[in-house]
């Protein structure tokens, strides 16, 4: 995979949750090849309700300095504040850390301003810009106390989306991370089966890659951490990037540089459909 030069965008519904249809997802904007580098950041911009993967140091006008972000919500990605700029350790910590330090599900790593019903984020594993290094004390796993959080909420308040926002307190309710993470996955899968309805209980998001003739949908529930998600996306879009690879690819038989192949069936043609946002989507990503 080539080194990414621009951001990639994954669209997320503003009010997606386990019960709401995962198809109500806002369209993603154009994007480039997916970054395969370690340093990635997930920043949530409330206005566009999009998940951006950006390079460290990259800035966007709406972003505020200071925090890294981690995704919030076990089975729902609620409205999120935009807190971070690009240079955050949040994602890399999640990548570099153990695979079960995955921040995707709420593991107490989010902050709340109690009573205001707003949501804040802090990096799960690292401190990024959140705390200065203090040799006297250990670095917190990115969890400032509620008092500290209050200072930060006011400037960000205007980004809060009130109705669907959830109050979230560090380490509350008191459930071990393992249990939280496991049950989040279980619940979504179970309700999937129970309902027989593939839409509910999954978190399908659209992924678009700039230059690709169609978009893909991916169920975020299937992945435990950023590493898995990124490799899955890589595989998904690898057929499109062959032509851009700088060096030859020994071992990839049957795939030439200039042809797009349907990896499953080996034919040159794939089935697509146009969804309500006007995007061309590959048939088959969302189970029947």
């Amino acid at each position, binding site marked *: 995979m080539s080194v990414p030069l621009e951001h990639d965008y994954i669209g997320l519904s503003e009010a997606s949750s386990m019960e709401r249809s995962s198809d109500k997802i806002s369209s993603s904007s154009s994007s480039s090849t997916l970054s395969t580098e370690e340093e990635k950041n997930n920043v949530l911009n409330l206005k566009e309700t999009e998940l951006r993967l950006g390079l460290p140091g990259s800035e966007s006008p709406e972003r505020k300095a200071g925090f890294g972000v981690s995704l919030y919500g076990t089975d729902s990605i609620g409205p999120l504040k935009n807190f971070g700029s690009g240079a955050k350790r949040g994602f890399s910590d999640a990548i570099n850390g153990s695979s079960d330090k995955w921040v995707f599900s709420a593991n107490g790593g989010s902050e709340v301003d109690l009573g205001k019903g707003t949501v804040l984020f802090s990096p799960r594993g690292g401190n990024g810009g959140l705390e200065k290094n203090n040799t006297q004390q250990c670095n917190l796993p990115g*969890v400032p106390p509620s008092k500290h959080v209050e200072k930060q909420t006011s400037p960000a308040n205007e980004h809060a989306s009130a109705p669907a926002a959830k109050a979230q307190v560090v380490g509350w309710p008191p459930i071990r991370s393992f249990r939280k993470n496991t049950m989040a996955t279980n619940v979504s899968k179970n309700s999937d089966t*129970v309902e027989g309805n593939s839409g509910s209980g999954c978190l399908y998001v659209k992924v678009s890659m700039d230059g690709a003739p169609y978009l893909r949908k991916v169920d975020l529930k299937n992945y435990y951490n950023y590493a898995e998600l990124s490799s899955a996306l890589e595989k998904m879009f690898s057929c499109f990037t062959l032509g851009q690879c700088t060096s030859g690819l020994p071992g990839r038989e049957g795939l030439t540089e200039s042809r797009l192949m349907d990896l499953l069936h080996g034919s040159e043609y794939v089935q697509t459909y146009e969804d309500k946002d006007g995007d061309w989507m590959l048939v088959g990503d969302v189970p029947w």
Partner: protein
Amino acid sequence: MAMGKGYARAYYGTEHATAVQRKSSAHLLISGVSNAYTLEVLRVFGNPILQVLKGLSFESAMVPDPKRCNSCKDSASSRDSPEWTRPSPFPDEVLDRVLSLMESHKDRSSVSLVCKDWYNAERWSRSHVFIGNCYSVSPEIVARRFPNIRSVTLKGKPRFSDFNLVPQNWGADICSWLAVFAAAYPFLEELRLKRMAVSDESLEFIATSFPCFKSLSLLSCDGFSTDGLKSMASHCKNLTELDLQENVMDDLGGGWLSCFPENFVTLEVLNFASLNSDVSFDALEALVTRCKSLRVLKVNKTITLEQLQRLLVRAPQLVELGTGSFQQDLMPRVYAELESAFNNCKNLHTLSGLWEANFLYLPVLYVASAGLTFLNLSYACLRSNELANLVAHCPSLRRLWFAVIIVSKTEVLDTVEDKGLEAVGSSCPLLEELRVFPADPFDQDIVHGVTESGFVAVSRGCRRLHYVLYFCRQMSNAAVATIVQNCPDFTHFRLCIMNPGQPDYLTNEPMDEAFGAVVKTCTKLQRLAVSGLLTDLTFEYIGKYAKNLETLSVAFAGSSDLGMQCVLGGCTKLRKLEIRDCPFGNAALLSGLEKYESMRSLWMSACNVTMNGCRLLAKEMPRLNVEVMKDDESDDSQADKILKIASLETARKQM
């Protein structure tokens, strides 16, 4: 020495005989004690043995009596005094034999305080040491006092580290302990660690330094990976137990399981349920086949139903089973074979796992559920009717853990889950422990999960209930009062109303009376976790009534310093106090000065304590470890997190 079949024999001299004759029959049994029959009887007595021994030592003139002997003025100083040389009427072998039957570390601690002789007898005979906080004592001191240890239980980080309130790299590293153990206890067999930092290097050190090592249990630990497991599997020739529960570890793949050598047959306990990677099923099956003593097997969710069936066929002797995934499309052949396999497991009393279980395959369990005493459904995410059907087949159930999920958004949700609990109440009269977890703890838009009526239903049917951990979204004072009326024997009452500071949903009042009822009615209460909207009144009640309370967890509660002061002043047996987000300040903190040394630990975070308060505390109580963890962004004067450990060490050494 004259042997009696239990009755008094005066063989130590007249004084002793006279003294003995005055005693009750329990004492008389002791005096003929070298007889194996009477030793068996002693064992049956259990804890009262200690009282009897003490009684003898105080009342008989021949036994050293700390009250009367000049050199042992008080038990604390007896260790420093010169050796007590008057002979005990108890031959050493007798005392040793009695002590060898004594397993409770609390009893042993009491024995060691009687006098120097008994202190020595006890310390030489102790084979298992329990250290409730790894910073309360150094490994060197442990090694010096107990020369013959085979088994160590160590607990490290404060419990709130489970909820990410403790900074990473805080400490509690096992490695310094291992270095001492390698020298002092080369025949160490067992390590049971909870909330300790354990690295792969440490695991390799264990595997290679202790040739007799048998048993490793890691609960809620962190810092290692499956590479460390490889070392254990490869090198521990006599391993009987590998028990991994809810650790924060790097799962780099399931290859570790294949590292058990082909001639390795000693495994009795294998629990890798919390790992996510695939293991080689062939290796697992072969391992299960050749380890004939295997009694506990808890696999992870990558193991399918068909694979489970094959394992059960190999190990019908299992006593505890954790299944893998319990979900797939219904296939009659698989169903029948699985049911038959379960039917052959006549000794099964604990069942867990059941990942993603659904109604299709649950019935295969019915053949084996009559004997079940512990059912852990917390990862099964059953619907209420599935739960009801299952527990209807488990009349012997003593312990039940489960998680509630919602079925659909449109249903009236707050009674569906309660129905499952009603079924528990009617089907499981022997139930002693209930833990109800929320399956979706953060989705507050949806009001679901159990309510108070489920809890009340269980309490009506299960009068023996003594341990409860209950997460709910609504509770009322009246319901809790009813519950404890039905079940007055609670020893552990942990109620988590999930919205912080939520009042009684019926009356809108604080939940003070609920916990008041708990502490007034449940006189045996040892552990209490409170929640909901609580004023100082709750803590007044706790301080006044909860005289056996040892552990108290408080969050988002209280109105003023008075609350904490009441608890510290009133709960004489308090050992662990953990507080977060409460309005307790320096006055409260400092009111407990006399108390802290007898407590294992105190945790306060996001309260109103300042650095000055901590400094004062540390100055007044130099034997306490007082640790302040500050968050960088906060005020310099604020002490964000405080941890106090009563310790023999002068400072907690950062490992």
